[in-house]
């Protein structure tokens, strides 16, 4: 499959993170200049037309989200743009590369977005563990300030846009947009109860838009080359170029860029196929919260609509590949340990449920499974869905449900045999070594 990368074309090029390189080679900040010459409504309209959907996980149409910010006469006071660079979904490493290689693409997108929503203050909330990236983004912001691309007089237009880099302290939940806002406000990273939604009452109680790094990196392309060009890439279920993070049991794990909606099998082919000549067992298509696909379900387009139809989601496009030697109980236990560890503890079903199903699945894996455990697991997972402030609870329940339903025989075998039938060295822990 031939496709010239767009978002990732500078990945690995020395100096690509500097403003000089970005302006010289990639028409850097031309789109932002153009956007500031347009009205906010025109910018929002263009992004709406591009059908760009958010790259953070939920896939919400970007232009539509910007349009939710109320008019100043309805809600006076400042507006905020927040860049969500708290990428922490297991199996996901696309924003990290964008921040490292092309931080200015994201910053230019932020200027355009800030203009579209009328924000004078922007924040990049960057994952605490991304220490090198935080330094690099900070340097990029200083470069842009020095050139007058941020500050009191952006591009000499008189428009004021300030940019602050804020580092997180290491919590998955702070990638959830309202958890992020709570953390940015200096509070405990608790997601906020909705309504009100951030677009109306977000950071410091003011209208706020939170956009993912990759989403914002797409925005200058749309303004520069036009919504029609952007839409010509990808499928109706997901337009534009898309970064896919392929990890697990493949020959060449890594970051791949394709038009949104590339077939999953083609994507696996690009990653060199399943390693060691083994057979494919399952694929997690969109980060650890996505429902799993069996090998026979992998003939699917990797876009928002198609994966939703297949009963799962594109999520953060963290594609995790599992080969035939993988114990699904152990794999699920691994995922559930993560959610148990990361649940913020605010809502009862998530606080208690994530721990319960983690312990239950761990017990099955260790040989303590009992008749009725799977029914309890499925019932608890069902009870965890749809009743909490944010979707972490659902995100923990989806894998529990899908692994158990799609690989029920394997779970039952564990209970019957009082232990794991797989050799330990071939379990997921080995794949990560």
């Amino acid at each position, binding site marked *: 499959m031939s496709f010239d990368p767009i978002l990732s074309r500078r990945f690995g090029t020395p100096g690509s993170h500097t403003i000089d390189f970005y302006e010289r080679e990639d028409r850097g900040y031309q789109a932002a200049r153009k956007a500031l010459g347009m009205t906010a409504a025109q910018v929002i309209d263009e992004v709406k037309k591009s059908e760009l959907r958010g790259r953070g996980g939920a896939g919400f149409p970007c232009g539509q989200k910007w349009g939710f910010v109320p008019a100043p006469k309805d809600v006076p006071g400042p507006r905020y743009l927040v860049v969500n660079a708290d990428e922490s979904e297991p199996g996901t490493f696309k924003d990290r590369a964008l921040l490292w290689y092309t931080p200015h693409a994201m910053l230019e997108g932020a200027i355009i977005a800030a203009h579209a929503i009328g924000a004078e203050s922007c924040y990049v909330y960057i994952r605490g563990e991304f220490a090198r990236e935080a330094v690099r983004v900070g340097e990029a912001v200083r470069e842009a300030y020095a050139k007058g691309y941020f500050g009191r007089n952006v591009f000499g237009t008189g428009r004021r846009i300030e940019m602050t880099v804020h580092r997180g302290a290491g*919590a998955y*939940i702070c990638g959830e947009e309202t958890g992020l806002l709570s953390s940015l406000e200096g509070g*405990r990273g608790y997601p906020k*109860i909705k*309504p009100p939604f951030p677009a109306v009452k977000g950071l410091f109680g003011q209208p706020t838009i939170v956009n993912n790094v990759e989403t914002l990196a797409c925005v200058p392309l749309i303004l520069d080359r036009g919504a029609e060009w952007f839409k010509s890439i990808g499928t109706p279920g997901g337009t534009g170029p898309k970064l896919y993070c392929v990890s697990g049991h493949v020959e060449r794990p890594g970051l791949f860029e394709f038009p949104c909606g590339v077939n999953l099998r083609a994507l696996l082919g690009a990653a060199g196929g399943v390693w060691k000549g083994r057979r494919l067992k399952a694929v997690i298509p969109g980060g650890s919260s996505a429902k799993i696909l069996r090998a026979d379900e992998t003939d699917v387009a990797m876009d928002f609509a198609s994966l939703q139809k297949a009963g799962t989601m594109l999520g953060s496009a963290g594609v995790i590949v599992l080969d035939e030697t993988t114990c699904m109980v152990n794999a699920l236990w691994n995922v559930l340990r993560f959610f*148990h*560890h*990361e*649940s*913020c*503890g*605010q*809502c*009862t*079903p*998530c*606080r*208690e*449920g*994530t*721990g*319960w199903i983690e*312990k*239950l699945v761990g*017990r099955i894996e260790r040989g303590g499974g*009992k008749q009725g455990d799977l029914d*309890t697991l499925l019932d*608890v997972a069902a*009870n965890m869905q*749809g*009743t*909490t*402030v944010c979707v972490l609870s659902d995100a923990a329940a989806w894998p529990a449900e899908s692994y158990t339903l799609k690989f029920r025989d394997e779970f039952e075998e564990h209970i019957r045999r009082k232990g794991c039938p797989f050799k330990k060295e071939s379990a997921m822990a080995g794949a990560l070594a």
Partner: protein
Amino acid sequence: MSAAQTAAQAAKRVRITVDGKEVQVAADRPILHGMLEAGVEVPHFCYHPGLSIAGNCRMCLVKVKGLPKLQVSCNTFPKEGMEVVSGDEEVARARRAVMEFLLINHPLDCPVCDQAGECWLQDSAYRHGRDVGRFREEKVHKHKKQMGDLSDVLLWGERCIACSRCVRFCEEITGTGEISLVGRGDRVVVDVHPSRPLTNPLAGNVVDVCPVGALVSKDFLYGARVWFMDFADSICPACSKGCNIRVESHQGAVKRLRPRTNLDVNGYWMCDHGRFDFKYVAEEGRLDRAWARDGDRVNYPGYAEALEKAARGLAEVGREFGDGALAALADLWMTNEELLVFRDLAARLGAKEVGVLAGPLKEDEVFPGFTILGDKNPNREGARRILGAAAVDGGLARVVSGIASGKVKGLYLHCGIPRFDPPEGFARLLATSEFLVVHATHRSVLTDLAHIGIPGATSFEKSGTFTNAKGLTQRIRKAVAPPGEVEADLAALQRLVAAIGGPAVAAFEPLSDRAIQRRLASQVEGFAGLDPAALDRPGRGPNFLPNPFPGGPRAGGVFPA
């Protein structure tokens, strides 16, 4: 927005239907609030009408027509015509699920938990929970600790359901922010930082707002099972704010005080000065029988005889030394009814000067959501209305100078103020009087000087009214019986008045506080229009407590299907 508009908005009500029945609810409150006010039982833990909305317990789920998922009714605001379903199987199943989650890591140590019997978790489990546990794993273990060096609050971490009520209380009402949620996921628990213990003077309220047994009172710990306790709705005597309280007693002993909701006075709260200031009721030094002193000899003639002796003694001094030889001192802890009879007494004695004894006058303690008043006297305003401002403000000084100048020879003195600290030189001066009657609750330097001593009752042992600093007259009710032969002060004062007038004390039948209230309404300008019946109405505001069986048990058995 003007105050009138704000009031209009607050009073605005909209019609919604709950399970097909039309209900009128406040427009500016979540539907949970409205449903509870209308008597619809909705289980909930984190919602508290006096705190901000957290929406974290997920127990109050309801179905709202037009919305795809179940909604937490504590964060759903009513719209005209909104259709809410609270009583169907889907909602019951969701609540049962939340209830199960809440209990899996809960220690279920109800037999030894102080909260048992008044626990929202217990009551909600009874009505909304499952009858069989499915959790086979190891529970999460958490610590126990005292939340402050001086504070009365103890934490049982494992019982905590992380509803964050106490956290919000310390942020929004006291503004001190000592309590935080610590840890993530099922390790989360409320706690304080070691260098910032919970020491604010409103801290006791966190025990009340805690819906479970996670925060309990050290003072009350293992004090009594709540279902064996007796309750009396009364008014806190510790300051002039007049916080509405419930006096909770067990076998005639006051065990704890807790606030009652009254949005016109104390909201939902009370301060710790008042909350824990009831120990004096049964302290050493409490007077429980009348006495008479003759030189160094003290004898106990019995209550009625002591009153007779007091009346005779005062009358003799009056006759012997003539006009203005008698004075009377009341105190600012006396009820309005007592003060009216005291006024009668002073008139009967022909007292030229009347004054009052007062507890401390300190600075107000102001918090974002509550002010503790500095005037540590519950009835200064009532005394002003009945005895007059002159008596309250300068009466004591005039009585003192009367004694010092030798004009005043005999004195009736009422002191029901716990730990009363007499002014400098006051006791020395009293020792010079010819005849001293002291009517007091506790032994002090003053009672040691008395020729006749009459034991008094504390505000927990009598009925009547206090008028708070804002001028609101509120009813106190007898919660426990006074010790020994003590009779309520109101009756004692009436007997004394009657005895001075002539008839034998034993045959006299004193009027009730109700009867005196009618006299107050007609004889004291400041109490014109006082309606004794209105005093029994509860304070304004919601008072939501879980009710395991509103309207009786559900059909089909104890446990929900």
